[in-house]
């Protein structure tokens, strides 16, 4: 996903020289072409993320469209006060890009995991939170983010993510979840590349006479409440899948909307990254397995949900 980000950024900067990329001493090879083509649009801010975030706010004040880019954990938690006060409180159009979100850097350990970012950032007014599921969706959503001129957190994966949209053409729009599969028994809600784990289960589920719907909630904030209400009205059994802490993510949002409607009797189950520091997770596949986010675990959850 990061390669696609670098590619589309070069393309868009050719047309829009207000784009300024600030890097936290990362992406050396990745942005070589960008730096060559747009030397005045790239600044390495060093390993000083707090300053980088506020510098971006100052640049935005001067009429630019700055993007801060580094590993998600560092670009969100180290900088959360700068995001709150300098970007969002002052409502400046900065895009905060986190790379290796969720468990993208699983084998680098807890310091590099980012499974609490959405929960923490969701509490900051004015901030949009966007999570593309694959590179095709990133290409579709990124120009929309630039056009919106809103403070935005863009939660990217790392690299070599399997496509979710495959041959289907992605036409996602900020603010509305995209239905990527039409079914009836159960409804799966998720975001990010973990949705691929769900798509891979379709044929097995069909053998079990389960035809799920799948919705891709690429826009976590502002959350589309009317759309969630419609989904809750249509499907009784809901599974929320997210590479995020069990608190503060999509499961919370869907549950609170359900609770606000007294007559809703939905069963909502969640698979998530738990609420523990993950030590010894190893690679992404192994870590997902340990947390119950792998295909088999999700399959079991869907079967259980279907039987209820």
């Amino acid at each position, binding site marked *: 996903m990061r390669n696609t980000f670098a590619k589309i950024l070069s393309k868009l900067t050719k047309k829009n020289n207000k784009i300024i990329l600030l890097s936290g001493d990362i992406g050396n090879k990745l942005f070589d072409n960008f730096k060559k083509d747009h030397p005045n649009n790239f600044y390495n801010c060093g390993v000083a993320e*707090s*300053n*980088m975030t506020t510098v971006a706010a100052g*640049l935005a004040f001067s009429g630019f469209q700055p993007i801060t880019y580094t590993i998600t954990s560092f670009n969100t938690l180290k900088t959360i006060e*700068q995001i709150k006060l*300098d970007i969002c409180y002052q409502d400046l159009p900065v895009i905060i890009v986190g790379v290796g979100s969720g468990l993208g850097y699983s084998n680098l350990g807890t310091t590099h995991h980012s499974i609490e970012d959405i929960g923490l950032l969701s509490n900051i007014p004015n901030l949009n939170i966007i999570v593309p599921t694959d590179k095709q969706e990133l290409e579709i959503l990124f120009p929309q983010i630039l056009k919106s001129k809103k403070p935005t957190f863009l939660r990217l994966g790392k690299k070599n993510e399997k496509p979710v949209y495959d041959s289907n053409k992605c036409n996602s729009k900020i603010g509305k979840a995209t239905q990527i599969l039409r079914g009836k028994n159960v409804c799966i809600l998720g975001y990010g590349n973990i949705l691929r784990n769900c798509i891979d289960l379709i044929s097995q589920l069909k053998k079990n006479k389960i035809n799920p719907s799948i919705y891709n909630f690429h826009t976590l904030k502002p959350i589309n409440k009317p759309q969630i209400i419609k989904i809750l009205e249509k499907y009784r059994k809901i599974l929320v899948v997210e590479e995020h802490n069990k608190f503060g993510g999509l499961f919370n949002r869907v549950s609170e909307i359900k609770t606000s409607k007294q007559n809703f009797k939905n069963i909502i189950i969640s698979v998530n990254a738990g609420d523990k520091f993950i030590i010894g997770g190893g690679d992404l596949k192994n870590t997902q397995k340990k947390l119950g986010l792998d295909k088999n675990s999700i399959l079991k959850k869907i079967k259980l949900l279907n039987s209820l």
Partner: protein
Amino acid sequence: MKNITKISNQIRFQTCKLSHQAKAAHLGSALSCVDILTVIFFSDLFKFDIRKNSLDKFILSKGHAAAALYSCLAFKKFISFKKLNEYGKNNSVLEEHPNKKINGVICSTGSLGHGLSFGCGITLGEKIKNLKNKNVVLLSDGECNEGSIWEAAGFASSKKLNNLIALIDFNNWQATGRSKEIFGGEMKKKWQAFGWNVMDINGNNTKQIYNALKKAKKSKKKPTAIICNTIKGKGIKFMEDNNNWHYRVPTKNELKVIEKILMQ
């Protein structure tokens, strides 16, 4: 410069009045930087066109000195005196820390350690646009405890932000004690080590402030830090260098004494 002294006395009194009316703290910190603010706003060094944000810019990074800033903005006619008197009252935008809904405030501050980075971003943006205007950020000495200040300091010199000027209001007191005892390292040497032009002046002497800023404006490559040695509570003898006035508010009788000292 004679006129400047008169204005600074008026701003001092106005600031004390605001603190008394609103029962708002941080008076000592506001008074130590009144001379600096007066030179910035009322000398011929800078031109502020705050509504269009197109000329020189000022950021009060030590946002707790808001009362002194608001007083300057009123004398500068960016805000009315009627508005100024709403300071600290319910439903007023003139809160105890400045926000950019107020004419003349370009950056909301209050949490220490943000204003210099914001100034870096503005200055870098203007450098890209090839603009020559100056951007001035006022920091407190206690604020220089914040790591983000030193992130900004390293950034500014590496990007050759010569149009950026930082003034450090070095009154040698922070909330609970002497700045030099609470946080180590020599202020002047630190800024020099981070690649800045550094000047060390009497920050309550308007002539010295004026000359230092004039020199800073001429810098060709480096950003400039002016260490302004000041006295907390400056101008009112019974407040001077007395850290109780970090939080204390003047009584009605004290305000009368202050008026006598400053306005006669």
